């Protein structure tokens, strides 16, 4: 059974600060998705990382996939109140696993205060 952990569980910061959240597993992933869920909405895909060591940037958000493909991080530069939300990671199992049974982490709840 894959153990998936996101940290920290809660994060409250001031506007303009930088932050990093993490997604770690005991298993190797074939790829990993990050979603953001704003209050009262469903999650929305931010990015998919596929290659070990890969770094992807989305404006002020930087996503990194670990070399061993067992972990990922999301770094936000100069956070804004609009970044407030629940950040969820969802790794895809290696080939041969049931790709439909996508497992989500419990998420990091980020609050950016003005």
């Amino acid at each position: 059974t894959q153990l998936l952990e996101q940290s920290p569980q809660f994060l409250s910061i001031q506007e303009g600060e930088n932050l990093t959240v993490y997604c770690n597993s005991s298993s190797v992933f074939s790829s990993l998705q990050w979603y953001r869920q704003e209050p009262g909405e469903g999650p929305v895909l931010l990015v998919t990382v596929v290659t070990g060591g890969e770094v992807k940037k989305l404006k002020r958000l930087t996503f990194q996939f670990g070399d061993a493909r067992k972990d990922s991080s999301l770094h936000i530069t100069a956070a804004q109140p609009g970044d407030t939300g629940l950040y969820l990671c969802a790794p895809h199992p290696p080939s041969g696993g049931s790709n439909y049974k996508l497992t989500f982490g419990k998420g990091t709840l980020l609050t950016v205060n003005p």
Partner: protein
Amino acid sequence: DVKVTQSSRYLVKRTGEKVFLECVQDMDHENMFWYRQDPGLGLRLIYFSYDVKMKEKGDIPEGYSVSREKKERFSLILESASTNQTSMYLCASSFDSRGLGELFFGEGSRLTVL
């Protein structure tokens, strides 16, 4: 834009009632999913469907059933609602035949069972 529409944003039901949660997607996606989201437990997969009339159990199918008579519609059924089924229910769809694609979520249905 892909749109996943859940029939009810808020429902209040009594223990023992039969509950139907409806979900419709308008992008001809093959795959549809039902998740429930609870504080501290994250998103958990109840059932998914990769084709019309096809369904498979997710991680927590007990107490639930599903129906997919048409490609665009996926219904979650609680045969006899119980208080421990009070939760946020999220429907999602995706087009990737390998189950690796982006999940598009509805806004959620918050069910309270009294």
